[in-house]
């Protein structure tokens, strides 16, 4: 198990000391996280890491998982898609069953001082909120800048019963009566996907994929999805290759719940077929070390998405000191300041031009990488995420003044 003290070598001892000081303000309070899955998915992944670290800081943190049947999860998947803006219709029967599953779970749970609900699945547990005994927080991890109105209205009926709602990006904020807090996602610098790797491990992984490290490599890591624009990446690579000798790596996993996935993969393979310098890598789940190595060994990392939630792959690459060229969409502009900590582009042509610049000016590329890593260190590591959670919990017991003395 990773110890909280291990992060001191990365973020500084003063930052870790501050977390311990903050945690003292929560003495005697129990924090109860509730979500709908113990494994798989981003929420379970972050809770798996954060809950043990909160405990080490002295916070009495717990994690409960609600149970649901297949129908429940089909309904919540539809809600998820609806929040993303995909047209969906939720029937009265589906919604009634959703509420009933929440009621059954609520009967089995005993609610503590701070009830921290993650995502829409357990949102209706708040029906069983009793008076002022517990404080309730709803944390939405999903991008819903343009949700389907009916889904939003259904959820809003529950959201207003929470003390605080938490969103991942400013664009997700709504006009709500209650307090809304911004907490960005984070990466864990000590995880397999982000920790330092010995050079021979990186070398061996590139060798196993047949990629030549003596020539510049540009890489995009993402699932094969139109919204990640892999075909646009190939176009940009081709335009740049007229002037610079580069190779392209497109690596990612499959999206099993995305019916368009195989079609996109086929189109990418067709587009790459006659070019030995394009490496299309279909990575199985649990390829964290491979992704880490591919990012670390690349000359430039791309994220040419057409639409993006937060885009944590950008944080991952920046953390590794790589120069990144990415689209100015979703949460990416929060991670990259154009020309300071990376390059933001809006077109294939712009991306191709930026690739050539960074290949031809390695010193400039290196500076972007240094600034990018520093920005991630200060704003998007797990220690900042923990700090935000501690402040969130503490704020429940404090007045609403601009400056609160602990």
């Amino acid at each position, binding site marked *: 198990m990773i110890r909280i003290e291990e992060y001191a070598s990365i973020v500084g001892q003063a930052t870790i000391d501050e977390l311990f000081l903050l945690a003292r303000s929560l003495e005697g309070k129990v924090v109860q996280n509730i979500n709908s899955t113990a494994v798989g998915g981003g929420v379970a992944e972050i809770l798996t890491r954060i809950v043990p670290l909160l405990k080490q800081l002295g916070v009495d943190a717990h994690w409960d998982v609600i149970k649901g049947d297949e129908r429940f999860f089909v309904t919540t998947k539809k809600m998820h898609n609806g929040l993303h803006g995909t047209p969906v219709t939720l029937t009265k029967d589906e919604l009634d069953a959703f509420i009933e599953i929440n009621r059954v779970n609520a009967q089995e749970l005993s609610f503590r001082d701070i009830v921290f609900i993650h995502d829409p699945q357990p949102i209706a547990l708040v029906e069983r909120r009793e008076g002022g005994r517990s404080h309730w927080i709803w944390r939405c991890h999903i991008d819903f800048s343009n949700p389907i109105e009916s889904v939003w209205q259904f959820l809003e009926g529950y959201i207003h019963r929470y003390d605080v709602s938490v969103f991942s990006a400013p*664009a997700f904020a709504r006009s709500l009566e209650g307090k809304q807090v911004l907490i960005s996602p984070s990466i864990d610098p000590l995880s397999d996907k982000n920790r330092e790797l010995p050079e021979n491990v990186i070398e061996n992984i590139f060798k196993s994929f047949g990629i030549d490290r003596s020539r510049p490599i540009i890489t995009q890591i993402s699932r094969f999805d139109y919204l990640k624009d892999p075909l646009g990446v190939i176009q940009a690579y081709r335009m740049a290759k007229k002037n610079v000798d580069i190779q392209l790596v497109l690596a990612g996993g499959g999206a099993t719940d995305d019916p368009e996935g195989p079609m996109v993969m086929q189109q990418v393979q067709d587009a790459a077929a006659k070019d030995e310098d394009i490496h299309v890598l279909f990575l199985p789940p649990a390829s964290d070390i491979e992704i880490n190595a591919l990012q670390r060994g690349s000359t430039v990392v791309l994220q040419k998405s057409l639409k993006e939630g937060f885009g944590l792959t950008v944080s991952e690459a920046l953390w590794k000191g790589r120069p990144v060229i990415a689209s100015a969409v979703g949460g990416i502009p929060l991670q990259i300041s154009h020309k*300071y900590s990376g390059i933001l582009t809006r077109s294939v042509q712009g991306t191709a031009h930026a690739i050539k610049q960074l290949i031809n000016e390695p010193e400039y590329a290196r500076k972007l990488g240094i600034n990018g890593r520093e920005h991630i260190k*200060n704003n998007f590591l797990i220690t900042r995420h923990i700090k935000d959670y501690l402040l969130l919990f503490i704020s429940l017991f404090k007045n609403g003044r601009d400056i609160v003395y602990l």
Partner: protein
Amino acid sequence: MNEFYFYTKLDQTILLGRKAKTIPELLDGIQTVPEASIYFHTHRYLQQHHYLSPEPPNDFAYWTTGVLNDAELGEQLSSIDIIRFESIQRLRQEFIALLREYNERTEKIRECPPGQEFHFMSTQTFAFQTPYTARSLGEFRSILKRVSISSLYYHIYDAKLRLQKGENDFSRWFRDLGFIELAEELARLDPYTYTLEGLRNKILALGEKYDKN
């Protein structure tokens, strides 16, 4: 005994659920959001990008230049000299005056592309005492090397503008300690033209200079 207690602070970012697509909407927001929101949008860049640039633009200028593509107004907004202001209310009035004047002389209203609206946010600050206390300039210098950048931020930026103490906490303590010139020299610095680490080094260098005298 004249002691300096080092405090630090951590901020929670609050979403106000309010956005602007145009300069008139930005002005409307600036006129009505809480003071903590004005503070957030004029200091966020400094705190989040403190290693990047010694001239942090405020969010209003950044959005006007980068999203609305109005470089002239963006430059005017970024030129507002925060060091001159003793209170956030006065700072807010400066932005309001500039934007009103712009609205009066501008006929065509530019609208930002969808999805790139200005989102008003605010901040709630949690301040607390660190275990560090200085009893002499020597101890102060030694501690200043170790405390987090948030502690420096609290005693320099928050103390003067948000807590309206008239000057930064360090200068006040130096003066009480009898280091009048050091206090004056630090008070004259424009902290908005330094990166935070650059500012830490500058204060350390000043401390060394006067500790030797």
